[in-house]
């Protein structure tokens, strides 16, 4: 087992400040720029770290109404070097999925790329909360695979280990503390009744199953789950204007909204609530793993379970769906 490096809070903070700006979750659980390392809660903050990389409201360009084309001012990517402190493994893993969309070679989002390149991800191991399910996805609360540096809090500081070469290079700039042997990675929690991830193909094959409509009654398509999901990336593009000044914006959107798929002529392929619920489940557990073998559209952060106004439980739903599919398959066999 490799060794970790003991860091005092002060020396870590000094080294991070040396590197540039510092972002961390604030008391409300939103990501904001901070001066000093905050005390973190035991679990993930309310908002996922995607807010810093693909913000809910991102300017594409602005111009003055009636101005000629030369006046279109593209928004400049934020190249501020710095670090994000307090990234949890579930959120960091979600960024790997967002990379697939925003760093695809044919159309790189320069704003996303700038943030990804300039911000060092400083992970902090968490004490999983009641609705944390990273174990479902095979990693734990101190997983370092998707962060640059993973810190495990201890009295007066942290034990640090590098998760990437970039993190390794950063750790070399911090006054070295004592080397301490690392504990074995902790397993992530999962529901006690959980038996394993569903087969993407089996889910897809049951697209027309009546159970979606039965589940629909306990969902109101508010979309809170998607807004707080670390992997949800859907957006719309629209303009906002005020007194002749126009902003072209990329605005967060989600598949639960009734007009998400409504076309200009009025035709809406996902007219009923249940079809939008199904879209969310299938996209995360069937379409994404089909498109990107080895990846899932969920990292088990459990925010959707925490925040659902109707107390729906994504994993319980998926489990029930699979149970029914399996039972029916057995009956046929």
């Amino acid at each position, binding site marked *: 087992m490799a060794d970790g490096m003991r860091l005092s809070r002060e020396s870590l903070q000094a080294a991070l400040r040396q590197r540039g700006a510092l972002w961390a979750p604030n008391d*409300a659980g*939103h990501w904001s720029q901070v001066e000093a390392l905050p005390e973190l809660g035991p679990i993930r903050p*309310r908002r996922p770290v995607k807010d810093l990389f693909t913000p*809910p*409201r991102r300017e594409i360009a602005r111009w003055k109404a009636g101005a000629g084309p030369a006046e279109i001012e593209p928004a400049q990517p934020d190249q501020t070097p710095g670090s994000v402190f307090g990234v949890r493994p579930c959120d960091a893993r979600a960024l790997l999925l967002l990379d697939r969309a925003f760093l695809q070679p044919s159309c790189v989002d320069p704003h996303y790329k700038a943030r990804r390149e300039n911000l060092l991800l400083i992970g902090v191991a968490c004490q999983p909360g009641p609705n944390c399910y990273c174990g479902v996805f095979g990693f734990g609360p101190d997983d370092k695979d998707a962060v640059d540096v993973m810190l495990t809090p201890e009295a007066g500081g942290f034990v640090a280990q590098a998760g990437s070469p970039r993190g390794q290079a950063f750790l070399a700039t911090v006054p070295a503390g004592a080397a301490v042997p690392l504990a074995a990675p902790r397993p992530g929690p999962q*529901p006690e*009744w959980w038996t394993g991830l569903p087969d993407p193909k089996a889910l897809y094959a049951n697209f027309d199953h009546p159970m979606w409509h*039965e589940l629909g*009654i*306990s969902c*109101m*398509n*508010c*979309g*809170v789950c998607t*807004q*707080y999901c670390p992997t949800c990336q859907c957006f*719309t593009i*629209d303009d*906002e204007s005020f007194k002749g000044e126009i902003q072209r*914006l990329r*605005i967060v959107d989600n598949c639960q909204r*009734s*007009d998400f798929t409504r076309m200009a002529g009025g035709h809406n392929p996902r007219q009923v609530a249940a079809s939008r619920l199904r879209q969310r489940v299938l996209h995360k557990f069937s379409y994404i793993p089909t498109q990107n073998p080895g990846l899932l559209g969920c990292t088990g952060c459990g925010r959707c*379970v925490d*925040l659902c*106004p*109707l*107390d*729906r*439980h994504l*994993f*319980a739903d998926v*489990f*029930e769906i699979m149970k029914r599919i399996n039972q029916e398959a057995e009956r046929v066999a």
Partner: protein
Amino acid sequence: MNQSLRETVKRLFTEGKVKSVLGYREHPLSKAVVATLITRPEDADTLIFDDRCVQNLARALTRDLPLPVGIVVKGCDGCAVSMRITEGDFAREQIVAIAVACAGVRADGKTLDERCQRCEMHVSPLADVTVGDTSSLPKPEKTRAETIAKIKAMTPAERFAFWQKAFEPCTHCYACREVCPLCNCAVCVTDQNAPRWIEQTAKPSSNLMWHMIRAFHHAGRCVDCGECQRACPEGVPMHLLDLCLAEDVEELFDFKTGVKQGGKWPFLLFNPEDPDSWLGGPHRG
């Protein structure tokens, strides 16, 4: 309670009074209480009612449910159903209100919800059948006037600053709208884009616009179920604004929402004696 609720529902099915029933069940895995729609009497055994039943099921009433639909209602929920009948969403005979004696709910599992502390409506005024002991329900611990007193005491500038800060975390997710049993416009103003009344992104102006419009649309309609505030993932106290306006509507029009069947929404009525003083001069000390 659960036993008599289940028997009542079974009886409604066997007597042919309902084709479906909206109620609460405990999810077998997550142990959370979720909404359920049952269409067979034997499924009535999954129904429960206790202080975890925080949701207002009136939001799930739609005309594509098998009608007549039975609905398990707490006091506030019953007022909402009553309002929806009043507004013509449903005919009275399409709804069978199964009123349950409600001593208040506990969203966090421990303390009585804030909304329940001022509840004067433990049993739905709209009730086709009543389940549970209605004789020993608690008295309200505080009044609406006490709840909004702190807003009343502020200066206008303080009020503006208070709401600016309160609305600041709003992300325009509109969970408050979706969960509201009375937010049932065919097309919400937030979804209209010609003109775009409320801009899609969260910022001080659009947040204020949304919450003012929301409050105005609920003036005289809000049944104080408090679901909007409970649903809000950011804890925006938007229901407080509803309460402020409810106070005004009661004072101006002598109207208590949802209580009287057929009592029309005061904006659909007028009284020739309505005073002009409403439109000018200082009205509050």
